[in-house]
């Protein structure tokens, strides 16, 4: 499972960085979105151990086995990061549209490069 996750993060990051460096605003925003997916997965993987089927909250009174439960902190972090990332991406989309309307081009510098 570690390998799959690592490959997934790697592919997302690679594509994200490549798109981020492209000259069109739409490519930039998709690149940022892919990067934020990669970062969210990365935060997840930074929990104590990757586990499937382990509960993050242990029932009160039950015997606590620290090996059998998932780290809840990264999950809380990812949730926050998703919400913030989503909101800022939406805001960026609006700016992108405004820039398209005002400058008449979708180049990131607001004008086409001279050929």
């Amino acid at each position, binding site marked *: 499972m570690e390998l799959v996750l690592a490959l997934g993060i790697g592919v997302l990051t690679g594509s994200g960085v490549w798109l*981020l460096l492209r000259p069109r*605003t739409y490519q*930039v925003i998709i690149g*940022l979105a892919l*990067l*934020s997916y990669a*970062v969210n997965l*990365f*935060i997840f*993987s*930074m*929990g*104590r151990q990757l586990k499937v089927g382990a509960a993050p909250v242990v029932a009160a009174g039950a015997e606590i086995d620290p090996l059998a439960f998932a780290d809840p*902190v*990264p999950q809380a*972090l990812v949730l*926050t*990061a998703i919400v*913030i*990332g989503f*909101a*800022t*991406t939406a*805001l*960026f989309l609006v*700016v*992108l549209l*405004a*820039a398209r309307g*005002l*400058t008449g081009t979708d180049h*990131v*510098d*607001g004008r086409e490069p001279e050929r």
Partner: protein
Amino acid sequence: MIVAPEHLVIAPVVLPLVAGALLLFFDDRERLLKATVSILTTVALLAISVVLLLTAHADGEAGAGRIAVYLLGNWPPPFAIVLVLDRLSAMMLVLAAALAIPALVFAIGRWQKAGPHFHTLFLLLLMGLNGAFLTGDLFNLFVFFEVMLAASYGLALHGSGTQRVRAGMHYIAINLAASLLFLIGVSLIYGVTGTLNMADLILRIPAVPAESRMMLEAGAAILGVAFLIKAGMWPLSFWLPTMYMAAPAPVAAIFAIMSKVGVYVILRLSLLFSAAGMPEGPSSFGWQLLFLGGVATIAFGAIGVLASQALGRLAGYSVLVSSGTLLAAIGLSQTGVTAGALFYLVSSTLAISAFFLLVELVERGQDAIANVLAVTQEAFGEGEDDEEMEPEVGVTIPGTLAVLGISFGLCGVLLAGLPPLPGFLAKFAMLSAMFNPQGLGEGGAIGSASWWLAALLILSGLSALIAMSRAGIRTFWAPVDAVVPRVLLIEIVPVGALLAMTLALTVQAGPVMRFMEATAEGLHQPWSYVEKVMEQPRATGREGMR
């Protein structure tokens, strides 16, 4: 001394949030109401911050100061989020509120009409700033950073226009990428140490096994890059001058402190981490990188200041010079230099803020393109020499221009670091600490780094002086048929207020400098900070409601 009630610590975060949210309920046409509410809020913020400052400084000059810890969820300290108030955060709170009031008053003149929800965004920006200064938790710092940035995106685009949107787009893209780096850094640190609490982190770092050390250092480095982008260290700073120039004047005035947030976090975290032995010794890679980066930023900023054709861009590059000076001074990692740097932080932020407000007033009367042409003509020597100059006898300078000119001159003196204003005192404090590393008159070896920084500090002052006098002469003396800009009283008073604050810093330089020294002392010896945070007892039952 005044000792604040314990819940006052969270007021700088809650107050602007509530006021900002409340203003959403009113129509944008009710400008008077909105302006009144937001100015009253910032005045209250200033009062609260001053009380908190007095609380943090309560033990007088010698002691470690009083560190107030506020447990947000009332969990015992390594868990959940804490707010920590010490001298440094209290000082930054006061500075933020002191900048906000003049900026808001200035905005009443015309800027608040330029677009919707100006006051709400402004108050939310303040909330993010204050939260970032107060928090003692790395991830919470991220959240407050995002609140601040989201509000700043809105404010930067306030008033719209092609130039603003174009600069804003770059600003947002860069900051979104920086936020992702921030997250990667935080999660790496969490993955290795298992904690996000800054104080707990320091206790756990020495126990990190050698094989995970690399990961921890990588995490810290990535986190550092995110803050350096905000602070505008060269080569991560090319977005900054354009962005600050394009932003509306009152927004640029408060943005002057936003680049200082990056500096603040770097100062706090690097000194905390070094207490845990992470950059080992003052000559390790981290400190050197900060120092060299700071030096490069000063050089880049100073050249930019000289080359700037528009006043706004000049102000933007001054921000870079100021950031660079702070980073390089932090990189030296000496208590005395840090104290001087803190003084410099306050005075340069006030000066740059006043300058941004002033630039907009001055440029109202003139054509920006004419300005660019004037510099080009100067450079190529194609002046109006062949024109017959009428002998002007006793040209009267209109009152408005006189006031603007005097303020402009004061800004120039501040940015260049000439006496008697605090720009000089701050640079003097830094230089004197650099050349007396063991204390005044005690001698001690002066490193080559100190010589470099001293030379650059003085040269950057010279470049600011040249650029400011050139711009001043061109703006106020050269044009014979000058159009007097229409300036409202309410717009010139904030500039005067900011300059008066710097003047007060000069008059009160002794106590202020002693405060800065105590602050720097506390930062370089963070164990009392760590102890205080970790041993904060939970509030229990009724006692907690006290």
